[in-house]
């Protein structure tokens, strides 16, 4: 593509572009299906049987079944889809962020109460390599 994907230089961020969307299609359709109570019941009753209705890759399937939240995004998932899977497991957006950042809920909540993650040192991937 002509687009030079400047945004791939942002650290700790997966931009959900058309390539990622194509890669994540079936995974994301699985996640959004959990918006409906009947599907949540079916997934709860038989996780593997239910997820196999969606022809996703073996990696995606494993990441979904094992709740690997960052991996899901790296494999073409998007946060607004994966949040439906998180909701199924009783995890809200802030708890999910606590998991994805590796900080845990308490430290993450504390960071947010103190004004959030600063932009300083978090603009470019090179700034993360020094640590």
């Amino acid at each position, binding site marked *: 593509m002509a687009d030079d994907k400047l*945004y791939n230089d942002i650290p700790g*961020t997966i931009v959900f572009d058309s390539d990622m969307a194509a890669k994540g299609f079936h995974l994301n359709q699985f*996640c959004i299906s959990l*918006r409906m109570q009947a599907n949540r019941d079916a997934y709860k009753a038989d996780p593997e049987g239910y997820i196999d209705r969606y022809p996703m890759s073996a990696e995606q399937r494993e990441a979904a079944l094992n709740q690997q939240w960052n991996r899901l995004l790296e494999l073409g998932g998007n946060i607004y*889809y994966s*949040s439906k899977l998180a*909701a199924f497991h009783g995890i809200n957006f802030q708890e999910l*962020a606590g998991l994805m*950042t590796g900080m845990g809920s308490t430290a993450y909540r504390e960071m947010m109460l103190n004004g959030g993650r600063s*932009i300083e040192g978090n603009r470019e991937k090179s700034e993360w390599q020094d640590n």
Partner: protein
Amino acid sequence: MAYVSSGVACSHVPVLGVASDTGNTDDDYYGPIFKGFEYSKQWIANEKPDVILLVYNDHCTAFDARIIPTFALGCAAEYAPADEGWGPRPVPVVKGHQTLSAHIAQSLILDSFDMTIVNEMEVDHGLTVPLTLMFGKPDEWPCPVVPLAVNVVQYPAPLGSRCYTLGKSIRKAIESFPENLKVCVFGTGGMSHQLQHERAGLINAEWDERFMNLLVNQPEKGSLIQPIEYLREAGSEGIELVMWYVMRGALNDTVEEMHRFYHVPASNTAVGHLILENR
């Protein structure tokens, strides 16, 4: 004739809907946020718009991955609150304004904005949380709503400059509607926030303030902010802020800022809010 009287910008953080629905709007965490909207509730009670045109985004709720419309205009008689995984919000069904919606759709398309028309749609927190923040918990929403859903989830979202021009075209559409209706335009989403991966929790208060100043006083210039700047400086989900430019485009070049509120945090997000009146 119909006319645009004012604009409201506000974040639509889902947890604020939860706080309202569960009666926690007075606690230490949420109290300061809902206080920031006390003026707004008074203001809109006096303003009494006949219709709200509400610009928001669907968060992979009504639209799944099969169809991603960049600009989708709701033309239905009503819009039910959607189940986003936790059960639907216990808030009133949103009534539409079908004749105004149909007129705006036609007018926009003939003005070169090729809208997607949606005749049946559930609405998620993107649309219902701003109504909660502005109106509290009424038995019925006080006026009908024309929803305009913008894709900001799959990159690329429409450019800020395109959203701004769309706002201008919406204004023309409203002003050519024969009924005498007072329309308030809402632009929702933002402010800086990132919900995903290891950089989640990003907040850029300085950037947010600059964004609001440009939006109010130099919209032409502010509308030129590029996608990469939103993503980098305001977080991957901060790009929702382009939707504020649809609202701004529907107003006069000169507006009066009646109210501004900014607060960190609500969940992962910086809450921003403006009330603008035409001058």
